């Protein structure tokens, strides 16, 4: 199977799907990730190579195939009775918070 995939790799790279720096900047913004100028070229290269690799899927015939979201076919989302089952543990959970005031999480001003 390894040979099968390795045989395919040259074909993928003769028609490379390359992402541009602008593409990666846009993706990083959507993902709320800061990427420094130094790091950017490495991410452009590696993301291009990954997208190139997964492009193999575009050649697979899938008309009339239902997408599969997870392996549990037929499982329904379970519901439970609308009764209180947890107790207030806010102080315990806020023990991990970077900044807390009066039981609220403190963040930079959002509303002008």
């Amino acid at each position, binding site marked *: 199977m*390894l040979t099968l995939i390795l045989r395919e790799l040259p074909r993928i790279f003769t028609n490379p799907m390359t992402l541009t720096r602008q*593409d990666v900047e846009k993706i990083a913004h959507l993902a709320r990730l800061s990427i420094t100028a130094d790091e950017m070229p490495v991410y452009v290269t590696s*993301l291009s190579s990954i997208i190139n690799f*997964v492009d193999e899927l575009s050649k*697979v015939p899938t008309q009339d195939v239902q997408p599969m979201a997870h392996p549990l076919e037929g499982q329904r989302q379970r519901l439970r009775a609308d009764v209180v089952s947890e107790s207030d543990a806010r102080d315990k959970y806020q023990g991990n918070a970077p900044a807390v005031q009066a039981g609220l999480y403190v963040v*930079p001003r959002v509303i002008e």
Partner: protein
Amino acid sequence: MTMLHTLSISELSARLARKELSSVELTRFFLSRIERLSPALNALITVTAEQALQGAQAADRRRAAGENGPLLGIPLIHKDIFCTDGVRTSCGSRMLDNFIAPYDATVVARLKAAGAVMLAKANMDEFAMGSSNETSYYGPVKNPWNTAKVPGGSSGGSAAATAARLTPFATGTDTGGSIRQPAALTGVTGVKPTYGRVSRYGMIAFASSLDQAGVFARSAADAAMVLQVMAGFDPKDSTSVETPVPDYSATLDEPLKGLKIGLLREFFDGLEPHNAALIQDALKVYRALGATTQEVSLPHLPLSVPTYYVVAPAECSSNLSRFDGVRFGHRCEAPKDLMDLYKRSRGEGFGAEVKRRIMTGTYVLSAGYFDAYYLKAQKVRRLITDDFRAAFGQVDLLIGPTTPTPAFDIGAKIDDPVTMYLNDIYTIGANLAGLPGLSLPCGFVDELPMGLQLIGPHFSEAKLLNAAHRFQTATDWHRHTPRGYE
């Protein structure tokens, strides 16, 4: 006393039952082994010595009061992906370096209720993303068989600790092979149950339709005892299944006469000669045990790696969006505004592989690309799953190698993501289809362990453990210990 690390879980349990040994003595023994041997492997992130001794004392008290469960007083190590109340849970990441979990994962709670004693939290690839345990914020884990080599990943610390006999067993998780692959590279037995068999509550999520908790042990018999406690319905996990849990230990010794084993043609294409020879030897053992073998083909299986590397990053980009520097985890210094808070906290908190996968996921889910990538991958996932279903119409279990090669050098593959991804070539299919898989030691290549993989239909863990155990009564690969850890 000095040989306690060579005993199986049932042998340790018997000694505890006969009061030849207390859990405190046993725990102290493993803690001292950890102190001596773990640093050279970098297998552990947090050693919980004080809590371990308290847990051991509690187990001894329970035993004195008349309890006698199979895991009562037995030490264990948890992969640092499981939330452990009051104990740092880092997920191998700077993002959670300061995170003290405020609750126990269900897996942790069940093992604690059974009286098992937590020694430590194991090192792992960051957020479970990796196949070599080289992406951890806490540094790479070394393979005890050869410390210049990787132990595999992402559960590299759990695997290395089990192989080095620092613990009778360890928990792990497997999303694309992260239990089976490191088990193969470190010469131990690793089990990934059926998706939905073990609760994911409190297990930090990577890819929610693929993640599953499992176990590392030095034999299928030991693994069966642990899986018995871990498995079962949990109302706190929406994807937990109500299928009853059989007695895994009761059927370990069933004869294999009539067992139909399928050799995956796609697994054998291009297999290295040494690897192929080990698998052929293993098949001879199975035939001698009464099983029959036949070739089966899963024509879409070669697509499993590209399928996974669309689905898993997509799911991870969603799951890791909760790490935003607001309520927990790393926060950058002096954020200018909310956007800066998010971007720098996440940019600083996550390592390169995690950022790569988040961005891959973001791309394949983004407007204009969703149909071409994510939806497409979900369709191919169904084709792969259907191939497995068809195969299980002809055979009871599938067999093949767990990895293409034995352990590779630390640093050899970390710079090229696609080369690294191909290490999961034999394991990923089972995750996509939600099937149970097991890796057991089957020999050595260049003095490094190799693993045999068994894959079964949904909820066939008992059959997998039975087939693995029978192999382990006819061979002794699983009894080999790395030099220096005997």
